[in-house]
């Protein structure tokens, strides 16, 4: 089989000295066997696969997208700066055209981390893809970016962060939220009033196999990407859809992952979840790296792989076809939906209850967005966690219109602390972050 070879950057950081707790899935051992397999296969000896040392993300990189309570240094450790730094290094290598694409094989993951961070949820403290995306925009100008989240868990953090951003398309395929953490990610979660259709969710039934994933890729993801015309495609590459994953119920294989990455052809892939550390990750990662580098992955498979035993039922196939059709229907109507969603409101509020399962923190949040036809809209957030911390944040979006900007600046100037422990002001265009 001859394919077009590509130059692929690999940022590998297994953090062999960091764990959430000794027996936690997110522990030292997680990428041990992946490293063994990548080294044994000799992938780094290929001239078109180049390993880079991750850089360190900075607090400024985090503050560009997150509101950390009370500040970034209190919710992260060095490991987060390195894994976000690894994602940034991957992006840098691609943006500077040193490589054609890059894979940040780093931990800990980030896709459950939302805009406001009171602690860790779903093993994530900060959202490493979002930090990377805003780093790209800061240094390489405004870009249309598509994030395709192929982790088995709904990428709720990434969705929440980009809910109002018309320039960031978030597509998540995942095991149906009625059967798995975090319980969200249904087709009707479709983006905020100023960014309708910029959030796409395709929940898949348990026991979906390669066939189902690739069907959604061909019939939903690729057509939407073609219309969105992104400058950059990012794969938020969780590996827990694998048939051996201990905390999920899907039937995806290493071959399936490799095919998905070949077809999707992401510019950047970032590792997210995946906890079958011995039976899945070594093979899935070798498959993804070969696929990204345009090398023959046809012989990559798990030693116990049995296609027949993993085949999805006819019922599942039909269910996925119906879901896909439903999502495409919504996508086609996205531009006409604003009127009915917004009505005569000038502002739209949404109330959120956020549970930080990893740290056991509950947060009540009220988010308000200004309805705007010219930008993503001014956002204000009132957040109260059961740690006793209540904060208020004003966020001026990237590529903001003058009206949203003036209103945001004026209200921050007027704001008194009062009942709030902290007041935050985040201005993406001017890269300003104030913690009052």
């Amino acid at each position, binding site marked *: *089989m001859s394919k077009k070879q590509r130059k692929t950057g690999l940022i590998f*950081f297994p953090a062999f000295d960091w764990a959430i707790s000794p027996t936690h899935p997110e522990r030292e051992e997680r990428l041990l066997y992946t490293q063994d397999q990548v080294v*044994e296969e000799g992938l780094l000896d290929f001239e078109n696969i180049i390993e880079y040392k991750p850089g*360190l993300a900075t607090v400024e990189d985090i503050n560009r997208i997150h509101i950390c309570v009370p500040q970034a240094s209190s919710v992260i450790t*060095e490991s987060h700066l*390195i894994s976000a730094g690894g994602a940034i290094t991957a992006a840098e290598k691609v943006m500077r055209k040193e490589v054609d694409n890059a894979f940040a094989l780093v931990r800990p993951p980030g896709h459950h981390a939302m805009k406001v961070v009171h602690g860790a949820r779903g093993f994530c403290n900060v959202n490493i893809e979002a930090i990377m995306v805003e780093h790209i925009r800061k240094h390489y100008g405004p870009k249309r970016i598509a994030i395709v989240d192929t982790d088995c868990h709904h990428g709720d953090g990434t969705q929440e962060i980009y809910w109002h951003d018309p320039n960031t398309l978030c597509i998540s395929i995942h095991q149906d939220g009625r059967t798995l953490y975090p319980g969200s990610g249904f087709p009707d979660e479709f983006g905020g009033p100023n960014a309708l259709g910029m959030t796409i969710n395709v929940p898949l039934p348990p026991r979906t196999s390669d066939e189902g994933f690739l069907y959604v890729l061909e019939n939903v993801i690729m057509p939407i990407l073609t219309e969105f015309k992104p400058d950059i495609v990012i794969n938020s590459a969780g590996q827990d859809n694998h048939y051996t994953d201990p905390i999920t119920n899907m039937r995806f294989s290493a071959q399936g992952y490799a095919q998905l990455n070949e077809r999707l052809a992401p510019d950047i892939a970032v590792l997210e979840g995946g906890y079958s550390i011995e039976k899945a990750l070594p093979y899935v990662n070798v498959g993804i790296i070969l696929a990204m580098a345009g090398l023959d992955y*046809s*012989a990559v498979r798990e030693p116990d792989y049995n296609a027949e035993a993993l085949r999805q039922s006819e019922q599942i196939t039909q269910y996925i076809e119906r879901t896909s059709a439903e999502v495409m229907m919504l996508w086609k109507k996205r531009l006409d939906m604003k009127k009915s969603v917004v009505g005569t409101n000038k502002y739209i509020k949404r109330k959120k209850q956020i549970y930080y399962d990893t740290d056991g923190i509950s947060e009540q949040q009220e988010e308000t967005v200004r309805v705007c036809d010219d930008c993503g809209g001014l956002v204000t957030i009132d957040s109260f966690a059961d740690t006793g911390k209540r904060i208020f944040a004003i966020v001026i979006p990237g590529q903001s219109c003058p009206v949203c900007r003036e209103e945001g600046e004026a209200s921050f100037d007027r704001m008194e602390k009062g009942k709030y422990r902290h007041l935050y002001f985040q201005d993406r265009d001017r890269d300003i972050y104030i913690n009052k």
Partner: protein
Amino acid sequence: MILGIDVGGTHTDAVLIDNFKIRKKAKVPTDANHLLNSLLKVTTTILAAEDPAKLQRVVLSTTLSTNAIVQNKIKRVGMIIASGPGLPPSLLPVPENTCFIAGYVNHRGIIAAAINTEEIKDAGAKLSREGIDHVGVVGKFSTRNPEQELKIAEILGNRFRHASLGHRMSGHLNFRRRIATTYLNSAIWDLYQRFVQDVLQFVHQQGISVPIYILKADGGTFDVAKSADYPAQTILSGPAASIMGVLSMAKCDEDAIALDIGGTTTDIAIFADGVPLLENLGVTIEGHKTLIRGLRTRSIGLGGDSIVRCENGKLVIGPQREGPAAALGGPFPTPTDAMIVLNLTTIGERGKALTALEPIARLLDKSVEETAQQIFEEACRKIVAAVLSFIEEINNQPVYTIHEMLEGRKISPKALYVVGGPAAAMAGPLGGYLACTPFIPEHSEVANAVGAALARTTAELTILADTERRLLTIGEEGIQITIPSRFTSEEAIAVGRERLREKALAMGAKEEDLEIEVIENQEFNMVRDSYTAGKNIRVKVQIKPGLISGFTREKTL
């Protein structure tokens, strides 16, 4: 007395070292087709009027293996490969006569697919029919569990003259390199066997009865009789000899750069705290990426005899060489000619150098002296750029722990050691550019032979302990032993030290040279279904490259 001999591509050098002082040196041209003749000539020259009974050891460094590979004077090898899932055959570095067979060991050393006796017999018969007498047997992850490779060798029996087994080549992972290494080992096995026999016979005839050692690519030595089955280890020992020689002549226990500026190339090596750095996985020869433990060097195509020309108004130096400098009768102008014009060296005929540089001076619209100066500076600049990029590469090597990421040690050389023809002329300016104090070691013209003479025996072992499976594996030794479930990394290190000691002594090491260090020590909790099932312990121990005991730098050579 110690006799050190380096059979190089052009010259065979010998030194006789007495009480750590050079007593004699000898140099003869190498007869590439009859290495033994060169050996005989240099030995008789240097041992004339000496009492061979006073010799304590003899160390040889030879280009035999290297040349055989470079000149493709090697045996056909059949490979029997159990690759399991992963890379397809088209992406593996296998020769024409290769049989892929069933069988697979996974990353933990667990057999995930069985081998098939009939299939192996068929493969053996097929290779025999092709007229092949030498084979290599390699399985994926065989260093994690050598059982299948050993079984395959057993099934093949005595069908072939020689079978090299992959797990014996190195304890490192890397299937593709394991294939390449095993292939090369088998390909030069015959040639090397004969060489060992010849050497043993030769020293016997000379009345020498002390241990004879061979230099390896990692700058360590091993007993020639013990080396017979591992000829691949002697590949690229030439550069290692020079580096060890520089080490012996340098008062160096800090970070330093060693340069060997030859006629065609400049070889760069780096010392960290006075210890030469090793390649991460292994050396590369003729495009073969191997697992052969070797000193980490970088070679650039720029030497004293590189051709200098002018292209589109710009100076270009090397990488070609067509004979010596013009001042010495060569056909083209070279950096050496520039140095002669600048009176930095007194060799050759300055008139010829001037004439050779003239056409370039005209193209550059400069005087011949100015042109010579520009050539000299450009040559220095190219070497400096290569040294800096080499150091940067070493310092930017990926690391896998937060600790190393934040506390990682950076190499920052303070001293520069230069050997080779242009050393005297170039050391000063190079030291200036690199902010290092320059040194030109004495006797540097025989650094290679001195390095061979004084190198100690080196070895390395990789220990994998899996307490869930209660199994300790030392792949490259073919050892698997049962351990208790509470086995610790301290115990793994203790086992490693003891086995390494035994291995090194068997290779000819002296007890006083066993400077063992732990180069890797990792311990992982293996958690299955939320409880700790055992520990995965990984330890590497080595005898680091260095000089034999008793040699101290106060006794400057």
